[in-house]
């Protein structure tokens, strides 16, 4: 494998001059990685229900909720919901590009901005509804 070290690597973060499509591209990767952590937490929730219900560890669900409903836990869920909505709008943008649409500089920039704004707005609406309906209390 003596040839492979000469292949180019993907450009790293510090190479880029700031522009919005570069920012949302990096954000799409970062939110994707954050959501991997989110999937681990949801798997832990299912596991907590499972081992509580089966009697392996009856206090597991209470322990999970103590962390999940704590102020720090809520901050983590807030961050994960932001990551989820941003990854959703970012993913939709990429699907549009995959269909061969929106490659003009102007529309590419516009989609990036609208995805960014849309993801943030959806997150805010989601949490306003959660607090307004009493689903989440601090």
């Amino acid at each position, binding site marked *: *494998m*003596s*040839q*492979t*070290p000469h*292949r180019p*690597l*993907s450009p*790293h973060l510090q190479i880029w001059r700031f522009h919005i499509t570069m920012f949302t591209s990096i954000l799409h*990767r970062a939110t*994707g*990685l954050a*959501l*991997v952590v989110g*999937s*681990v937490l*949801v*798997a*832990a*929730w*299912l*596991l*907590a*229900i*499972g*081992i*509580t*219900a*089966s*009697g*392996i560890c009856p206090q597991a*669900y*209470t322990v999970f909720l103590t962390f999940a409903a704590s102020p720090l836990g809520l901050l983590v869920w807030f961050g994960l919901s932001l990551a*989820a909505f941003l990854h*959703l709008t970012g*993913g*939709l943008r*990429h*699907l549009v590009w*995959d269909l061969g649409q929106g490659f003009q500089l102007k529309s590419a920039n516009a989609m990036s901005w609208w995805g960014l704004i849309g993801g943030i707005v959806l997150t805010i609406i989601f949490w306003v*509804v*959660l607090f307004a309906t*009493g*689903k*989440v*209390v601090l």
Partner: protein
Amino acid sequence: MVDSYLRQRSSKDWKTSEKHGAAEWLAERWTSVALIVLGGWALWSAFGLMNQGYEVALAFVKAPVNAGLMALTFVITVWHSYVGLNANVLDYFPNSRALKLLNLLFCLVVLAAALGGLFLAFKA
């Protein structure tokens, strides 16, 4: 040396790589489309279960339709994560087989934890 490599090996390698890459590219897309629907369902369900306590959560998990959809959501989520994490490995550590293997193991552990929890709750 590079020339002989190109003549003897690379065209065969490229052909294999091309097929392999296309499958992963397609998997990334169809799982993302599926996750728009399943993720929406999961978010809606999470909204309903929040602050309702253990019994409501357990009853939700034990309903066959919910259990099936959750299992499906996890299989596709973990698959999508696997492809995404592998893209990171290939971008920054293109020669690391260890990280590719670690990624596979990690994804299988997450899937096993979720499906195992689901199974235990469903059976209880």
